[in-house]
């Protein structure tokens, strides 16, 4: 997928997202991984807004794992039990060199990010646009994850605009 004029910060966040996805055993890059990537890279307004609302990478990873665990429970499988049975060799992580594709939700989020960039009249695609793109899919895993973390989407958006304002004043 060709990405357009990402800032270094966004590019780092997307790269971090792929690392997070592999770490969690995701065989494609989900929209929740883009969110995790922003948290991991700690770059730009997107990351600053999340941090100021108390969202940490650790908490977000835990939620991702909890969502997997709950999905398995819904079909009667206990991930803990699987792990216990298989022993130390059981590891959800994918190897670092494993190529994984963007999921359609992640693609949509990045397309949404570009739209947000144009809407705001910006000439760069920063992590705030990526985050806004992610928030655009209410049905996505990232939005659900934020909900579980107790983050109000309106508050998050507001914080980003606030931080943008501050940056513009400098």
């Amino acid at each position, binding site marked *: 997928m060709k990405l357009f004029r990402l800032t270094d910060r966004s590019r780092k966040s997307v790269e971090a997202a792929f690392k997070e996805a592999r770490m969690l055993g*995701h065989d494609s890059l989900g929209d929740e991984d883009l969110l995790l990537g922003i948290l991991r890279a700690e770059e730009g307004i997107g990351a600053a807004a999340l941090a100021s609302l108390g969202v940490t990478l650790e908490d977000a990873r835990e939620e991702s794992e909890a969502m997997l665990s709950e999905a*398995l429970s819904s079909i009667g*499988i206990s991930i803990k039990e*699987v792990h216990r049975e*298989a022993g130390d060799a059981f590891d*959800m992580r994918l190897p670092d060199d494993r190529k994984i594709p963007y999921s359609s939700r992640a693609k949509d989020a990045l397309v949404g990010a570009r739209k947000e960039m144009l809407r705001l009249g910006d000439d760069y695609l920063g992590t705030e646009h990526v985050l806004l793109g992610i928030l655009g899919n209410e049905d996505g895993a990232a939005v659900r994850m934020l909900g*579980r973390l107790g983050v109000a989407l309106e508050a998050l958006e507001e914080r980003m605009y606030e931080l943008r304002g501050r940056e513009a004043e400098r």
Partner: protein
Amino acid sequence: MDKKTRTRVGRPEDPREGLEAVVALRRTLEALEAARVENALIAGWSWAKIAEVLGVSKQAVHKKHAKRIKARYPGEPPRRKGSRS
């Protein structure tokens, strides 16, 4: 977040939940297969024997798992005895 109500296990009300369970299961299955293959090698099984039980070709199972296992046991293959299969 909307309340999750399920009729019973195996019959999620929301198709999305049902499909997401499939994704979770696929990811778990991949990890479980890798772990079981690794454990079998440690137990001294050959790739051929592992492949036979998994119902796939020896090449397929080797291609899928050898690299990961090599990375996990640098320098010392988990299978110490036996000929190359």
